[in-house]
């Protein structure tokens, strides 16, 4: 048997191009991660995402059980189906992680985000801002003679839409909490 011939040429496929056979479709998933509220747990989760090159679209965290000291981290992430599966498996390996739920595949869920928007303006623009806030059911939680702060709760899309409308009306600053989510039903 003769030695194998290696042909000249180039290839993009390589040992490091690890995922050529998997789907390229990008999906956005919302994950709920129940963790022990101990020092460094958030760093472990964030470090996992940065260390392995995953995306974080939004992340919220707070202690939800004060007696059991558990926190709920809600992460919105984007990736191919295979990457999403890896993210869940990798999260599950972290020692203080109790549960990982993929709310996007586990059935219908409710997703909400809270935003504070500061809008500065006068005259017609100021009136228009108030009128639109009313349509979006946003509350004015602070007002001065030349500005408002609106509080708006809703899906990220709704907040995006409202922010777009406010931009020409004098939007100067926006603060968003990121998504909190729960699965529907019992």
């Amino acid at each position, binding site marked *: *048997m*003769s*030695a*194998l*011939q*290696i*042909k*000249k*040429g*180039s*290839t*993009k*496929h*390589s*040992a*490091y*191009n*690890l*995922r*050529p*056979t*998997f789907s390229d479709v990008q999906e956005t998933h919302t994950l709920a991660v129940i963790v*022990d509220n101990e*020092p*460094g747990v958030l*760093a*472990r989760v964030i*470090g996992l995402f940065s*260390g392995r090159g995953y995306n974080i679209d939004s992340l919220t965290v707070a202690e939800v059980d004060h007696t059991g000291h558990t926190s709920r981290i809600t992460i919105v992430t984007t990736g191919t189906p*295979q990457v999403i*599966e*890896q993210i869940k*498996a*990798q999260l*599950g*390996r*972290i*020692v*203080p992680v*109790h549960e990982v739920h993929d709310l996007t595949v586990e059935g219908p869920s409710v997703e909400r985000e809270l935003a504070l928007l500061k809008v500065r303006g006068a005259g017609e623009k100021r009136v228009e801002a108030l009128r639109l806030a009313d349509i979006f059911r946003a509350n004015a939680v602070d007002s001065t003679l030349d500005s408002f702060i609106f509080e708006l709760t809703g899906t990220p899309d709704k907040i995006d839409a409202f922010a777009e409308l406010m931009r020409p009306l004098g939007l100067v600053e926006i603060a968003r909490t990121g998504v909190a989510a729960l699965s529907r039903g019992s």
Partner: protein
Amino acid sequence: MTRQMTGAKMVVQALKDQGVDVVFGYPGGAVLPIYDEVFQQNDIRHVLVRHEQGAVHAAEGYARATGRPGVVLVTSGPGATNAVTGMTDALMDSIPIIVLSGQVPTFMIGNDAFQEADTVGITRPCTKHNWLVKDTAELSDTLHQAFHVATQGRPGPVLVDIPKDVQFASAEYTPPQKARTRHYAPQVKGDMAAITELVEALETAERPIFYTGGGVINSGPAATQLLRELVEATGVPITSTLMGLGAYPASGGNWLGMLGMHGLYEANMAMHGCDLMINVGARFDDRITGRVDAFSPHSRKAHIDIDPSSINKVIHTEIPIVGDIAHVLEDVLKVWKSRGRKVNREGIEKWWAQISEWRMVRCLDFSQAGPAIKPQYAIQRLEELTKGHDRYVCTEVGQHQMWAAQYMGFEDPGRWMTSGGLGTMGYGFPASIGVQMGHPDALVINVAGEASWLMNMQEMGTAVQYRLPVKQFILNNERLGMVRQWQELLHGERYSSSWSEALPDFVKLAEAFGAKGILCSDPADLDDAIMEMLDHDGPVIFDCLVEKHENCFPMIPSGEPHNKMLLGENASTKDAIKEGGAVLV
């Protein structure tokens, strides 16, 4: 009965209660109270290394050769940062290690105190888990948890950072039985439906192959036994990764040899041509798969692994089974037997005939011609003269490592200690020290290259101090051999910084440390020189001057699939690696 004691005493007590008999470490300001306690007892032996990296590799060697977790004790700041490479190595190779590091007192943390480093921050990505203990009352419980996490599930390194004031303060000691091992309980039993599917596939497969890895060894002796039983009973060929050598004996009838980048021709061709691949405790590493989209294109793949994240990470698997290897293999055997021990005899017979053809390529053949010792010949003679011994082999990283894997045979698990995932030059020598601590009467050999060996040569002091008769078998080509090989193959023979000038005289170096040095450069003298090394009761540096430009074959060039291997002598190495492959390592 409650037992009040200081944090420092708790550390020693917890180690005793966990059955620890040896600790590798290096003292410093922030761990002095613990060293004071170590001094006042005789149950735990402390091995003073010469650099903290050596301590971790020694603990790794100890862990792999004994099956018990290795323990490391280092000081704050530089002590902990020096241990980082070892912990990363242990993480990549799934070796259970417990690192205890001192820390500046709690009230000084964050003040840039002397020898302060954010140890838990630095080691978070290179440990399985780590803890900073701020209260002595939590210390013993945390230490027991550390042992639990390091050894359960997929093993790995853990670190417990202990501030100095926590070591001085007193609290109640929690014994291991009362420790909260909490919710960390990885799944060990495999899914029966998947196991049945695997058995069904095994019954009909014409060209099945077992592809096994370090997970079999980590799972313990039962896994090895069950694997051997299954392989023998089914007659299926078996290959293994670098990490899994010894799980199935090299002398076994179904053994194909190691697979992968420098694996055997027959093993790689069988991986490429199989119709059923059963991955047992391996992880489709890039050294194994080569080009992924051309990896074993015609096979169904089953994957048994205790870590769910290993499954479908690189290669899509039709039959995933999450569980401990021993538990799963026991169920596989049970189901296979209960269904009548069926296999496709005719298919497997043809499969073996095909494999025999591949074997006739004799991919490891070389010729010992000329005045210089061929490195392959050196390993072959070493194997021949030591295989009858109660022998443990460590390696450094590079060509010598691959030659050792190719030309040495391992009959049992835990006899082969090498840095697989991280590829840490400087691993082998301290690892051999750890192995010898675990097996004082065994023959422990470190097959090394001169460049790797120099990376942790300071441990010669440790070997001499503790009278550890480790044999340092150095294949000296005065080159960074593997780097040189790659530069020859894909960087136009421009040997940038891969050449060691000013190497020490290794015989004099050995003598300077109070050890024995042997120099050998003539093939005719090799056997006698090796025998002289074996006969010496003490550490030996064996400086084996070998052919300087030998390349390691077979080789799957980067970016190529398994059936595109470069072979020795016959193969043209010019333009072997495609442009796209040059970006890989």
